[in-house]
């Protein structure tokens, strides 16, 4: 295919946007938890996997459309996140006071353990079989671009959610407090931000977006109890590209990643996917160690 055709193809743009939007949604939750608490949730992809199962069961057992079930599943995810924070992580955070390095290490172990437990419980409870179902599989044509309706729906839901969260962070008091905690944790505490409440909220929001991403994933591809890891990795790449804790930059980085996956592969070869992805990743770390879109001198 000639280069110009590749770059101007609406079909590729659509593919890049779908991939990018899903990455953005996955990375958003990961980044929220990291930003407010400096905890790297390596079980994040497993939450996506659980969300996918919830969507799958809702559709196959109860016959509920995954799009209808999605808000409820996200709410359940929020509940689990909030509960885990209250029961497990608040104590952990409190115990370390200002020793954040040790806390980061311990939380990593805790999340790692959580990830293994979630995977194996899911395998025992749901069997390790691949799962998948068909929902909104019909194809619509807009101009010369063919779109499967479920991919279009996933793009819209993921995009709107990201925009919604961005508004929440930019406009609401709690959102602003959240950003304050992300940027200057101690200063936020000094000016009277309820850090505990912010952290509980970000945990809940992080888990909710992961669960929602899972429901969308379940509409598009097959999954098993062990397919969460790929989302954790994708999420990591996005938030490191954008800058850890930098939420808006994460969204841009996710779209960039989607573009590389589609356009990079189209212009070179599918076999170079990982080379392109990790090449950019390493290059970013070398040239912009604080992330592609970090404002100089502001972060830590």
């Amino acid at each position, binding site marked *: *295919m000639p280069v110009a055709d*590749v770059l101007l*193809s609406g*079909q*590729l743009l*659509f*593919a890049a946007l*779908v*991939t990018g939007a899903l990455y953005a949604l996955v990375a958003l939750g990961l980044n929220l938890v990291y930003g407010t608490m400096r905890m790297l949730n390596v079980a994040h992809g497993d939450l996506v996997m659980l969300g996918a199962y919830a969507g799958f069961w809702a559709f196959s057992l109860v016959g509920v459309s995954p799009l209808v079930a999605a808000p409820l599943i996200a709410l359940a995810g929020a509940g689990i996140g909030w509960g885990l924070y209250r029961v497990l992580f608040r104590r952990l955070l409190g115990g370390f006071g200002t020793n954040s390095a040790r806390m980061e290490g311990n939380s990593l172990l805790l999340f790692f353990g959580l990830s293994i437990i979630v*995977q*194996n419980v899911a*395998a025992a409870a749901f*069997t*390790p*079989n*691949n*799962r*998948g*179902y*068909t929902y909104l*599989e019909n*194809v619509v044509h807009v101009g010369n671009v*063919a*779109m*499967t309706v479920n*991919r279009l729906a996933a793009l819209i839901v993921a995009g709107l959610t990201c925009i919604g969260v961005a508004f929440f962070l930019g406009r609401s008091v709690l959102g602003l407090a959240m950003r304050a905690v992300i940027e200057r944790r101690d200063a936020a505490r000094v000016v009277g931000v309820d850090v505990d409440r912010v952290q509980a909220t970000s945990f809940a929001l992080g888990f909710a977006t992961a669960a929602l991403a899972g429901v969308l994933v379940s509409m*598009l*591809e*097959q999954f*098993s*109890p*062990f*397919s969460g890891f*790929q989302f954790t990795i994708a999420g990591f790449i996005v938030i490191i590209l954008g800058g850890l804790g930098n939420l808006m930059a994460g969204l841009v980085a996710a779209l960039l990643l989607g573009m590389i*996956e*589609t*356009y990079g*592969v*189209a212009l070179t*070869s*599918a*076999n170079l*996917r*990982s080379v392109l992805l990790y090449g950019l990743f390493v290059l970013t770390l070398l040239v912009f160690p604080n992330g592609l879109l970090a404002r100089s001198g502001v972060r830590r």
Partner: protein
Amino acid sequence: MQRPHPPRRLVLGSLAAAGLALCGLPARAQADKPLRLGFSMARTGMLANATPSQLNTYELWREQVNARGGMDVGGVKRKVEFVMYDDQSKPEQAVRIYEKLITDDKVDLLLAPWGTPFHIAIAPVLEKYKFPMVGNTAASVALRQVKPGYIWFPTSAIPDRIGVELTAFLKANNVKSAVVIANVLPFTKEIKNYLEPELKKAGIEVKMSAEYPPDVKDMTSMLTQAKQANADAVLALAYPGDSVLYAKQAKELGLNSKFQFVAIGPSDPFFPKAVGASAAEDVVTIAHWSPRPQWKGSQPFYDAYVKKYGEDPDFLNSALAWMSLEILEKAVAQAGLDKAKIRDIISKQTFETINGPVRFDGVQNAITPTAFVQYQSGRLQVVWPKSIASSQFKAKTGW
């Protein structure tokens, strides 16, 4: 995590059996003791999603054997129990497990783990302890390098033969041009290497040939090019994960070649569920089995599997697993637990299985032909070669 499964039942079962053996007459002692069959299976890790169809088949067999009084061990019926460990999708773990099964657990017989690398990895262990095992879910030209003697491979889906037979199949259906896309994992890569020269030899034009990595997330650009190539056949040498991605995106882009071959994935019942029955219809894939009246036991196996699990067996892996059990069962009925005798019998005799007669030449099945199946009205049917076909090939008319 090396826990036998299910532990409690096993322990209780063994205790009960031991108790009975102590109380009973010495001559009855062995017959009352259950026969222990050991194996490893990827229950966790990246391959765990591929193994249930094999494990389900093992469990169905155990249930049936025990229901008819047990496995015939040289004329004495003994109940069967499993000693299973999770190999965590790691071949090196399987090596340790098989050593332990032989030396520590002292199991009576061994069943195969899932997958080619696992079979190849444990072959030296079997050789070392002179412990025969009938393999099943392994297919590679590399299997021929395995020293013959203690392991056998019933499959006929070996990549070089697939190259020859698939080409003949395409030719017979008047295919003049093809697009080849291949996952770079070993099995599909091997198929590609053997298939493309065969296509050229047969005068089938390869209009496009591309490879992609196992973690592919989007095939839009590759399939857009494939569509522009406008070939009679698309040969998607895919693994289970990307077979679904391929089908979904081929549908989206309207990649409507009349011959749609998807290498691995469609033989598993999850495929039509994940892509939809109409998309799965007329897709051709690798397998050499489907229920046929000529193959004794094939329909009862299919019916029993569907009854127990509520879905079709995997037409490749479940069938192979069942064949391996049939072969072992017949050998043990004659030889008892004498390993050397079991080995001789498996090496020399011809076995009637649900996939027709099987005889081994070295490590390989010398009889079963390399074959292909196609979804027709929601069921897989053998459509090539003609000698064992249960139906005729149909052109795919869209997704």
